[in-house]
């Protein structure tokens, strides 16, 4: 917790004073089976609805449901909420809720010194301690000395709360997380009605389960109130963010991407969005969300593999729908051959890559930014295509729309880079209205007169979109090099040179059709430019803020269009003595910048499957400036 204390004052409910905080970071941790993700999201929702700004970081294991109580089965959800603009889930939790020994073991070290640990003593049985690899209980020795410790038999209190509802003990204990949530909501002065409603909605078919969860929730909340006077549970009031007025919701990158794709399809005036995909972590969520958007003209196709998925999507685009496909890691590798065909036949296609830690299977549930090279360079032959990346969960909405715009206006596949962190993280979002979405209607070719399948718009160099079923436009396209006019197979050397140049010119030309690169924070020239892309936006933004507060001449530049780059990017970077590029990879954007602009940009790299901490970037910049 931010330690700047304010004089305590009677809070809303007029009872005893609460301490006041600018912002707080809580991490809920428990077994995969304990519903921590759900608990976290509900807390997020309540906090967001109370006008707090928010960033979250869900972190769950690759195993579906590893044996209860083991360290590798621990699931955690971190939320950073409060006033000011919050762009990261926070470096160090102020509060750790640990529902079993394994959860404690995996997480307590991250806690800020002096932070609060809440544990369910009921779960610290010999067996569970053993499973977590504890000889002696960390609650007894001085393991937790550096922290405040709040020991509660949450299990027992939950059982008491749901008593009389006639649930088995096993089932009853499932509500532990709700009791805990209730307590945390109280502790930070949050409401709980939305959650209660939500529970009743979700378990409509099992009223007894619904009631048990609500009862536990209320009990946990009430517990806070009743023990209020005692010293060991203190309440806090957390600042609201002064966010612009309007209608809000919480949104994950996955949801925002799905909605952006639909909005983009509409903006392009296309009737059908055909999403072909094959499940893979962390991309799968997009398939799940889109499968429920049929009402909005979305058709989803779960293919037999990633190759069939992208091929079906290309086929759909060929037939006049917006073809979209999505994958991660190994699945993206499998799409590269077909991507080349989309480049060669010049058909629109959006490919969403939710990057995960590699190489190969790597760490499926961990985020990384190591597919940038693949997106820009990873095909056989010279096969250029646009690459863009989203910065935050909500930003996925705009970036998805931009992907559709580029794909349809330039008749090209577009790679949209997201990652496992963006996909699952949530933030409050001031909802745009349909009216805010830019329009970029496509025109399908219908006029047979003077039709050349590979004739081009002089402006964009895009070829016409001529859809099967259109009278008089019958033609053949394929992967063999095409004559620059007729599209017939051509082995002519000059034609191949010409087509190669045209393909390159078309994509490079997009640089004229995208906004100039702006500076996120700070001046447009100075000592250091910290240049980032994708989900590192948050930590870089905070780090630069701190560095600037410390009076250093540091600016933050966030690049959304990675191929081609904005026209002015090179010039802009020339204006800085030092260009530092933090990336969750071994140095990919930095090498693109060096190659294109011949500037001695340097990387700040982290490849651990975890997002950057603000302090990590801040320190690396400081270190670099000292020497």
């Amino acid at each position: 917790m931010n330690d700047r204390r304010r004089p305590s004052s009677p809070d809303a409910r007029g009872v005893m004073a609460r301490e006041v905080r600018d912002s707080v970071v809580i991490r809920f941790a428990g077994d995969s089976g304990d519903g921590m993700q759900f608990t976290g999201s509900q807390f997020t929702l309540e906090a967001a609805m109370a006008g707090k700004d928010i960033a979250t970081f869900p972190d769950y294991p690759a195993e579906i449901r590893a044996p209860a109580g083991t360290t590798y089965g621990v699931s955690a959800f971190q939320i950073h909420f409060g006033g000011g603009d919050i762009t990261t889930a926070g470096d160090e939790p102020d509060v750790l809720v640990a529902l079993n020994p394994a959860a404690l073991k995996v997480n307590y070290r991250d806690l800020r010194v002096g932070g609060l640990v809440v544990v369910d003593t009921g779960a610290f049985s010999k067996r569970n301690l053993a499973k977590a690899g504890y000889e002696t209980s960390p609650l007894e020795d001085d393991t937790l000395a550096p922290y405040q410790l709040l020991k509660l038999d949450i299990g027992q209190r939950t059982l008491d709360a749901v008593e009389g509802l006639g649930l088995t003990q096993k089932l009853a204990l499932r509500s532990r997380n709700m009791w805990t949530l209730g307590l945390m909501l109280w502790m930070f002065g949050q409401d709980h009605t939305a959650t209660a409603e939500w529970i009743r909605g979700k378990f409509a078919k099992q009223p007894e389960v619904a009631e048990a969860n609500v009862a536990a929730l209320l009990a946990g909340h009430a517990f806070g109130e009743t023990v209020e006077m005692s010293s060991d549970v203190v309440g806090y009031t957390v600042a609201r963010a002064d966010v612009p007025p309007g209608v809000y919701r919480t949104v994950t990158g996955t949801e925002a991407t799905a909605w952006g794709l639909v909005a983009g399809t509409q903006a392009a005036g296309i009737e059908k969005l055909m999403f072909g995909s094959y499940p893979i972590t962390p991309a799968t969520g997009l398939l799940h969300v889109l499968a429920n958007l049929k009402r909005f003209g979305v058709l989803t196709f779960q293919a037999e593999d990633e190759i069939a998925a992208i091929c079906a999507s290309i086929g759909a685009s060929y037939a006049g729908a917006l073809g979209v496909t999505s994958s991660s890691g190994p699945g993206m590798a499998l799409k590269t051959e077909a991507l080349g065909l989309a480049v060669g036949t010049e058909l629109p296609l959006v490919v969403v890559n939710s990057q995960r830690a590699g190489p190969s299977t790597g760490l499926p549930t961990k985020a990384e930014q190591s597919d940038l090279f693949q997106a820009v360079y990873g095909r056989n032959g010279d096969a250029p295509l646009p690459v863009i990346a989203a910065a935050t969960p909500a930003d996925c909405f705009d970036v998805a729309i931009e992907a559709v715009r580029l794909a349809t206006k330039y008749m090209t596949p577009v790679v949209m880079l997201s990652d496992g962190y963006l996909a699952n993280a949530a933030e409050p979002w001031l909802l745009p209205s349909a009216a805010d979405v830019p329009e970029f209607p496509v025109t399908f070719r219908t006029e047979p007169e003077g039709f050349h399948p590979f004739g081009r718009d002089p402006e964009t160099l895009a070829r016409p979109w001529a859809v099967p079923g259109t009278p008089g436009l019958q033609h053949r396209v394929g992967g063999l090099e095409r004559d620059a006019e007729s599209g017939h197979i051509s082995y002519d050397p000059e034609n191949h040179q010409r087509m190669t140049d045209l393909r390159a010119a078309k994509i490079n030309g997009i640089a004229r059709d995208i906004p100039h690169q702006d500076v996120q924070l700070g001046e447009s020239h100075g000592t250091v430019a910290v240049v980032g892309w994708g989900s590192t936006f948050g930590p870089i933004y905070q780090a630069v803020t701190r560095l600037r507060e410390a009076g250093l001449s540091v600016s933050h530049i966030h690049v959304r269009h990675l191929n081609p780059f904005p026209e002015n990017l090179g010039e802009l970077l020339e204006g800085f003595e030092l260009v530092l590029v933090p990336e969750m990879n071994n140095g990919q954007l930095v090498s693109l910048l060096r190659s294109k602009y011949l500037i001695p940009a340097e990387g700040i790299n982290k490849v651990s499957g975890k997002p950057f901490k603000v302090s990590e970037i801040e320190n690396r910049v400081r270190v670099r400036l000292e020497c």
Partner: protein
Amino acid sequence: MTVAAKDFASDQEVRWCPGCGDYAILKAMQKTLADLQVEPDQTVFVSGIGCAARFPYYMSTYGFHTIHGRAPAFATGIKLAKPELDVWVITGDGDGLSIGGNHMIHVLRRNVDMQIVLFNNEIYGLTKGQYSPTSRRGTLSPSTPQGSIELPISPCALALGASARFVARSVDTRQPHLVEVLKRAHAHRGASFVEIFQNCVVFNDGVHSAFTDKGVAGDMQLHLEHGKPLRFGRDAEKGLRLKPGAVELEVVTVGENGVKESDLLLHDETNRSLASLLIELGPPHFPVALGVLYCNPESSYEKDVARQMDEAGAHPATDADIDTMLRGGRTWEVDE
């Protein structure tokens, strides 16, 4: 206005080897479409890579020459985007059964409405004659100088195993028969699989002659007709019956030692097990079964998808209510 066979020929010069069986298939296809009076602009030919896969370039319809083995996936996307299109997939034994085997079995299983025509010349033509998954054991090829050692795959057996609902066979040069089979495939709603025995004059000449040569055709071809007895032979003197009490077919001669026509098995297109018995037949002891081996329609994939779209109250994206979409779920208002 009617379309003639020649109207289905594109302006592109046909580039197969002189004498290739593909020419005959091309002609048969053009005749079929003319007979059916389909609209060229509502028809799409989709192919992978191979000699066979060059087919779309020679048709005046829409055509998509895609990548090796993936044509069924592209065709599925086309059909999902525009179900009203008439979609044909042209593939080869390598394209459709080697690299493309997985898409083949899944498009059949999904039963997407399209005609899949596999030109089986038991060789990789375009890459100059390596053995393919349908090549018989011992096939000498540049990659098997001592002869291939793998058991060949039977395209129709695989299709049936993948739960295809329409499986048929014909021969490149038997135009009338081929045209009939293609019409049946076209009439079938759902995925129809047609294997055409095709001759590669350059790399596998005469590979099918044991049953396609004029001289032997009569004795070595069994022409199937639904509901009719399984008769064959130069003078239709022979027939097939079930070995009493066993799951096995045997050749008998009608008239000889008391065998009556009524003893012969009747062809039943809807009996999957009979189909698999017939598919296994072949030289030297049995004739090759040609025609419609199996036809047992089921609702097709793109139709069911459309139904679910309707049930879900789908609108075109163009008049989707974006605001409703974004506000579906928990929202809250922040005021000044």
